[in-house]
């Protein structure tokens, strides 16, 4: 009887599965086509632009790597990601600790300030910031862009880390303080090891945001040797827009690391992103 019921239930869900599979084809079909085209040559794309490849031209990858200058752009992007993520986690973590644990006097005002600051659009402060940064020699400077990314991403990081830290029982810290630890030691030795899941979530969201970021990277890094994978790919596609095989190979090399990381840590990614990490 139970089995019959389950079967009936499964049958009644058949339309759901069919519609969801159609939506999956819509969502992933284009990604699959890029995978196909990354191993075709230009002529076979002309004959067969969307279907699976009949022969495999693996040289597309080294060629796109070379032309797209991927060794330089990957290095630049990694510097930006690592620099931003470590700074956001360190400085944002410190602020979150002060808010959650040290009863920061004026903490409510700081939260309000961060809330207002994080809702200001980039376009509002972009123009004066650019000319300020040029005045300070921070345009065309990876470090200069890292500072901007840290400022833009820190409110989200502080909110998320603070709400996590509030939930940690204070017993460990109090014990450490009784033993004579100062606040810095409490933060680094007690708090960080206890709250690594929240730090990892924030790191993933911020890292993805920086890796994918377009507007600020376009404005603040205009010299070719400083291009990120994203801005370089943008230039690459405007120069080689006719060559769909090369642009697809470059695209595959760009999204493969993102996809692998996303699929291995997808629960953490989705949880972090849906808590307000990145703009649509």
């Amino acid at each position, binding site marked *: 009887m139970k089995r019959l019921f389950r079967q009936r239930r499964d049958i009644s869900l058949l339309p759901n599965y069919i519609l969801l599979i159609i939506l999956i084809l819509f969502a992933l079909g284009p990604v699959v086509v890029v995978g196909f085209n990354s191993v075709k040559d230009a002529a076979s794309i002309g004959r067969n632009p969307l279907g699976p490849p009949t022969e495999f031209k693996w040289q597309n990858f080294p060629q796109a790597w070379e032309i797209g200058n991927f060794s330089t752009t990957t290095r630049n992007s990694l510097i930006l990601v690592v620099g931003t993520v470590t700074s956001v986690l360190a400085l944002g973590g*410190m602020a979150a600790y002060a808010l959650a644990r040290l009863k920061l006097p004026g903490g409510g005002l700081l939260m309000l300030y961060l809330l207002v600051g994080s809702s200001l659009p980039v376009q509002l402060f972009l123009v004066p910031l650019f000319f300020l940064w040029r005045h300070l020699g921070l345009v065309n400077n990876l470090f200069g862009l890292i500072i901007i990314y840290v400022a833009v991403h820190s409110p989200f990081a502080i909110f998320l880390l603070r709400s996590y830290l509030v939930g940690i029982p204070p017993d460990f810290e*109090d014990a450490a303080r009784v033993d004579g630890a100062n606040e810095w030691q409490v933060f680094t030795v007690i708090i960080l090891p206890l709250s690594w899941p929240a730090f990892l979530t924030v790191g993933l969201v911020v890292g993805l945001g920086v890796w994918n970021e377009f507007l600020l990277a376009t404005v603040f890094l205009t010299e070719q040797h400083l291009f990120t994978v994203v801005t370089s790919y943008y230039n690459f596609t405007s120069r080689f827009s006719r060559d769909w095989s090369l642009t697809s190979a470059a695209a595959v090399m760009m999204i493969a690391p993102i996809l692998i990381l996303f699929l291995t840590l997808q629960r953490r990614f989705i949880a972090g992103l849906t808590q307000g990490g990145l703009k649509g």
Partner: protein
Amino acid sequence: MANSDQAAMPTPSAPLSRQDGRSPWKRRYRKYVVPWMFALPILLINIIVVIGPSLSAVYYSLTDWSGIGAGEFIGLENYRKILFSDMDYRRAFLNNLAWLAFFLTVPFAVSLFAASMLARIRRGSMFFRTALFIPYVLPAVITASIWRNLLSPTLGIGALLADWGISGLDVAWLGRPQTALISIAFVDNWHFWGFLMVLFLSAMQGIPPELYEAARIDGASRWQEFRHITVPGIRPTIVFMLLMVAIWSFLVFDYVWILTQGGPAGSSEVLGTLVYKQAFMRFEAGYASAIGLTMSLLAGMVISLFLYLRRRGWEI
């Protein structure tokens, strides 16, 4: 009860306060200076990057300024131009409104539909959720380049359909003034809706299943369940996302810039691309600041409208 708990609280930290009590200076140091030393670095960076330039944008919007040297103060002239004479601004603003209309309807319809399909199934639901979320983690440049090819009249989906005998779709979607903006919106939505779907799905999982069982016993159809249980059950999430999407709609830049740079012939220009062009290609930094400020005002008006309706007793 609660009072006695609170009264018991200070005991564990009693040694701490004794330690603090050594000298008044040291106590003050621990109470005020140490916490602010933790919070100050990030606050300073945020002031320098976000708040300082935002405030100076207000001043620069009142100047004629090329970006170099000092600007000439011209009062409200930039705003007069925005309101009364700049046809580029007017068209960009109308395009932003069209964008708003698209994004307040299409992604919400698709993702509500998909989430309500997905909320009913158990087997494979994790797989579907992850797969539908993937477009959201791809960078805009990749999404844009994929769809530029898929929307091409010679190599894309339209050409394939024409081969199969379905003609009329093999047009230059991004190259014609009539279709450029809607095509960009379509591509951005391809990237965005999975995110919305996952948000709605997790909200739907918080609806008590008994409500659905009761509805089924009463003989409700699927549509009635959706209309009277699912939508009211996740209304806070829907309303909040409507608000966020409305704000984002005035700030859009990436997809428009990457796919068409506002063209052809300005047909897909939005305020975000107009700011970029004025500031970094036409070197009218003062005017660009004024446009940026109006974008923020539009976003602020959306928030105010939301708060006003809520205060008027709308259940949003």
